């Protein structure tokens, strides 16, 4: 076996909490078990803390098959039941084309072109992210 360019991810995907939003960044190829674990981790974190939104950044993901599509729509459905919105951000064009041809349009899944847009869509307190000299003149 030759060494693969991107090593597959096994175990836990980090779930970061930024204010009331969970940020999950997926990279490379995921094991099925890792994707299912992620679903569980998001559910537990969303239930434990006052989370209003979940952003899943797919910009580093090269393929989404029907299994991964199911995980994404299950996460969206689950977080809705836990009073939070899920937004999938940064899907690559080739992945989107393939999903449509596969027959997976994932209705009910909110999308954004990138993480920043996703946060804006969620109305997240971007002020919670300290940025030099940004919000100084605007907020009283």
């Amino acid at each position: 076996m030759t060494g693969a360019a991107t090593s597959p991810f096994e175990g836990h995907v980090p779930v970061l909490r930024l204010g009331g939003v969970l940020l999950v960044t997926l990279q490379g190829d995921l094991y099925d078990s890792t994707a299912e674990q992620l679903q569980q981790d998001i559910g537990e974190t969303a239930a434990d803390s006052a989370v209003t939104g979940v952003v899943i950044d797919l910009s580093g993901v090269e393929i989404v098959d029907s299994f991964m599509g199911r995980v994404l729509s299950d996460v969206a459905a689950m977080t809705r039941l836990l009073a939070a919105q899920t937004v999938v951000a940064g899907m690559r064009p080739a992945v989107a084309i393939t999903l449509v041809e596969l027959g997976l349009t994932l209705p009910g899944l909110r999308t954004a072109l990138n993480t920043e847009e996703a946060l804006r869509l969620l109305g997240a307190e971007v002020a919670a992210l300290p940025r030099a000299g940004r919000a100084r003149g605007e907020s009283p």
Partner: protein
Amino acid sequence: MTHSTGSVSACLPINSDLDLVRVRQHVRQMTAQLGFGLVEQTKLVTAASELARNALVHGGGGQMECTSVSSGGIQGLRLVFSDQGPGIVDLDQALSDGYTSGEGLGMGLGGARRLVHEFSIDSRRGIGTTVTVTSWNSRPPRPREAP
């Protein structure tokens, strides 16, 4: 070196979700080597993932044979997925969208067929299922199926 049709370049086992990752990575590498465009690469890798998962989940495991082929100067990749599972009773039903016999969205077989240029399936009850798909790196005119 000319690519001779029919030389099997690799035979990968499909017995765990680790193998699914290996199948995807192998098909990705092969399509990249053959000069497939990014969209065509993604389509074939996704189709391979669906078919490998079918062999794993419904066929109880199997294997994928990966062969580079050429026709009229056009290069392609042929993937043969085989399992020794129970076979598919109703092929038409299995190929239709939304049909699922287990977990999933029921898009695996029918969806995979739409992602490749050539698709054939041979399933015998009690013996197993073999799915053969081929994609070419320069698209031949392809009759578009009615949705």
